[in-house]
């Protein structure tokens, strides 16, 4: 593994939906072990940017380099293989309602032929233990709270041993009292050295865990730097205005 290389390097990303330009030439890169937070008002393109990184969204132009490989030039079969190295957690959890907690975690590695059923179950139990849901292993997601579902969704990605984890507003759909338990899992993951990109509105969390913060507006990155540079010393008027509004409440 080449340590000095970028895990993800996005170059000149452009994406439109029905003629509306959502990403307007975005460039940025993430190094191994880095925790990057993407902030910005709704509709600024931050989720789309994240979804382009594992090609859930196909960019109109530009490149997405994952560990040096341009994903936009890969066959769909190869993209499927690269996605196994890029974990993703969604706003609405997207846990599989027809499977138990344990089956949710073991489905992909077993179906992808990466682990035997026994190996997968052993790993899944350890992961459930780690997020304190061992006693829920045979429960269906209906019986889990939002916070529990999101924690389950996180370890469902982790069993693939991804090189990077993408979080798309992981706490936005949660009741306030459940936000902390999910942020704690992400924080622990960051502390363990995982490379993380997170789109969030949790400013306090962004300030605390991020190595770098990006501020997006209208499909472009307007500001980029350490949390203190961006939150406290930005010269960008749009960014200042945004932080004033979100930090006020």
């Amino acid at each position, binding site marked *: 593994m080449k340590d000095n290389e970028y895990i993800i390097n996005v170059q000149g990303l452009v994406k439109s939906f029905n003629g509306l330009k959502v990403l307007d030439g975005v460039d940025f890169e993430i190094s191994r072990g880095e925790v990057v937070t993407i902030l910005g008002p709704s509709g600024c393109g931050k989720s789309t940017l994240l979804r382009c990184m594992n090609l*859930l969204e196909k960019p109109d132009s530009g490149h997405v380099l994952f560990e040096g490989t341009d994903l936009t030039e890969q066959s769909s079969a190869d993209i499927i293989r690269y996605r196994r190295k890029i974990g993703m957690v969604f706003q609405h959890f997207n846990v*599989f309602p027809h499977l138990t907690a344990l089956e949710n975690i073991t489905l992909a590695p077993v179906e992808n032929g990466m682990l035997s059923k026994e190996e997968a179950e052993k790993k899944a139990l350890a992961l459930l233990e780690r997020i304190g849901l061992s006693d829920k292993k045979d429960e269906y997601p209906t019986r889990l709270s939002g916070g529990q579902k999101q924690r389950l969704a996180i370890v469902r990605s982790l069993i693939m041993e991804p090189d990077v984890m993408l979080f798309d507003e992981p706490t936005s759909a949660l009741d306030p009292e459940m936000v902390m338990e999910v942020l704690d899992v992400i924080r622990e993951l960051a502390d363990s050295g995982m490379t993380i990109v997170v789109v969030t509105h949790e400013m306090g969390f962004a300030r605390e865990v991020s190595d770098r913060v990006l501020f997006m507006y209208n499909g472009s990155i307007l500001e980029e730097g350490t949390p203190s540079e961006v939150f406290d010393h930005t010269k960008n008027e749009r960014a200042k205005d945004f932080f004033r509004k979100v930090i006020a409440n």
Partner: protein
Amino acid sequence: MIRNIIAIASRYGNVFLLGLWNTVWLSVVSVTFAAVLGIFIALAKMSKIRPLSRIAACYIEVIRGTPMLLQLYFFWLALPNLFPEIPDIICILIALVVNASAYVAEIIRAGIQAVDPGQREAAMSLGMTEKKIMSRVIFPQAIKNILPALGNEVIVMIKQTSLASTFFIGELMTAYKKVQSTTFLALEPLTIAGLIYLFLTVTLSRLTKRLEQRMRANER
């Protein structure tokens, strides 16, 4: 009249029972075959391969846009041209299957599309192949929407098979015609046939409703 009904029911009970049996198996068999065929038509219609989805859309449009009775005549007339030995009942069965397959295909497509798109995205992000996403994530959830609707399709089919009596293939309306032509009584055997249809459809819709509740109760 009620006395006549009772008399006819006891005298010709076995004729009606045979009709009932034929109606039931025709409906169940045709919907079963239609379900298998319908899966492929639904997948074809949702396919990204343009000509394939066009053909499927066309098939569904033609079948749903023409009367069942016409389709029965069509297959009854056309199939013996290709296969001179083919029995009437097979022609009728094929017509029923073709007819139901178009409706079932739409039921299946709607069932699949009702599954939250986030489920597919989650499976994609886990690097699952399209085939596995369909078979292990989407379809097991879609089936909960599809099965109750298929139950309703059986009910529709039970009533539709009455049209096949035009070809005297022995279902419930054929039974009515037989009894009517031997007894010269029409209203009474018709009432009996009606009660049997009603019994069938009411029972089935109860079962379907229970199935629906059980599927909902399990999850979500």
